[in-house]
């Protein structure tokens, strides 16, 4: 079973993410801040899904940090944001994929499936 680390400051979106991914057969670890994720990186997930707006760090900076850390650089990062400029910003930060909020669940699941399967192939 693939594991997702989902980092988002909004409780509502964390809740709905749990519904979406558990129903699709994933294990999901929810983090409401960058600090919470970074302190629990002892077992790496199969994908990081990051919001841009986090309480303790910009999600793009968190993405850069994960991509420059040898232990996590190979793990795909999907950036999620309501910011319309997210596409260009996320690409510059080294994210593997980007999705604007609000999203279609089937698109989200399809991107996550592609990113997690390509990693192991």
């Amino acid at each position: 079973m693939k594991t997702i680390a989902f980092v988002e400051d909004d409780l509502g979106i964390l809740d709905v993410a749990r519904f979406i991914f558990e129903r699709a057969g994933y294990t999901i670890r929810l983090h409401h801040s960058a600090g919470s994720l970074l302190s629990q990186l002892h077992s790496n997930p199969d994908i990081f899904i990051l919001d841009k707006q986090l309480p303790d760090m910009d999600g793009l900076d968190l993405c850069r940090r994960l991509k420059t850390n040898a232990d996590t650089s190979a793990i795909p990062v999907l950036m999620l944001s309501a910011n319309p400029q997210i596409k260009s910003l996320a690409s510059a930060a080294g994210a593997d994929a980007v999705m604007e909020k609000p999203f279609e669940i089937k698109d989200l699941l399809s991107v996550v499936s592609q990113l997690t399967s390509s990693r192991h192939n």
Partner: protein
Amino acid sequence: MRAALYVPIVKEQQVRYLLCIYHNDPYQWFSDQVVLLTELAGRTWNKLARLEAEERLKASEENYKAIVNQSVSGIFKIALDGRILFANEYFTKMLGYTPEELQEMRVTDLIHPDDREKTYIGLSNMVQTGKPFDMEKRLKRKNQSVLWVTNYVAPLFDGLKEPTGALVVSVDISRQKAVELQKDEFISIASHELKTPLTSVKAYGQLVQQTLKEGNTEELDDMIGRMNLHIDRLVNLVSTILDTTKLERQEFSINLEQLDINELITEKVKENQLAAPHFHFVLHPCTALWIYGDKISLGQVLNNLISNAIKYAPHGSTITIDCRQEEAGVKVSVTDQGIGISEKDQEKIFEKYYRSVGLLESGRSGIGLGLYLCGEIIRRHHGEIGVSSSLGQGTTFYFTIPSIPQK
């Protein structure tokens, strides 16, 4: 006895001057002397007329100079090569240069680099067509700060009707630009804030649809309940925006009725507890206390203060809601164990569009209208609103409203 000869200087059938010749002793004027003096009077007129015209011109110039220097717009004159030939006092004040410094400069030195090209195009069109134009642009002050202006530019011509330069009236529009910027920023923030609950609503909508297709209805009740909570968040956000607009248009009204503040607080705490089960809510109720209040507006204030506590405090922490009778009336406070608010931010936190610097740096959002609206609602209840906080120690927001004396 003395002798005198008066020769009137007449122009257009009016005596304009009188040429007077006196003799200290009695004297009989000869006719050729009278003819000579009459001739002299005629010649003197030309000189006097010229002096009069010069006086008028001088007065007129003084008049225009006073108008130009009293103007609350910058006025300056440039040559075709861009040299600044003249600048009024106001323009020197706008930019912080002395008149002497300005006269050593070219107009391009004053224009923000990003606005130079459109200025060249405007000036070149004006020289070709001979028509005035206006343009919004940024100027650079001596201290390198930016000043937004609208420049009204009119061509100047020589006697052969060839363009020689331009006269520019420069109006400071920095306040208008600041309002525009604030409005754009607000739209961008409000869109982001609306998209967050919309994301949850849309996702739950899709999940409900999928669940119905699968025929698995066990989770439906829970999903629809959660979806409704996010719809309430959206409604609250939209209401805050609309109420602020009503306040600005003086259309915001409250309907005061007798109500039990304790009952209202209990209701709002329950609602928020449901929406944020990760927090520990502690309610210190007061005994039934009646006030004259608008139930909907005061409910908005309570929701706003509690949801702020939820937003800025760590998960699992305690939010305390306290209600007590004081001399001034009933005092309601909401205390969290969150990141706290600096003293500087506390001074401005009830201002419209204000978002605390600490919160912005921490990436937390808000549209900057909630507390402003709370303040206005409490003032309309003849009450007071306030905050006490220290960084890292949590925050208490409180308000007092006069209570109805117990019989």
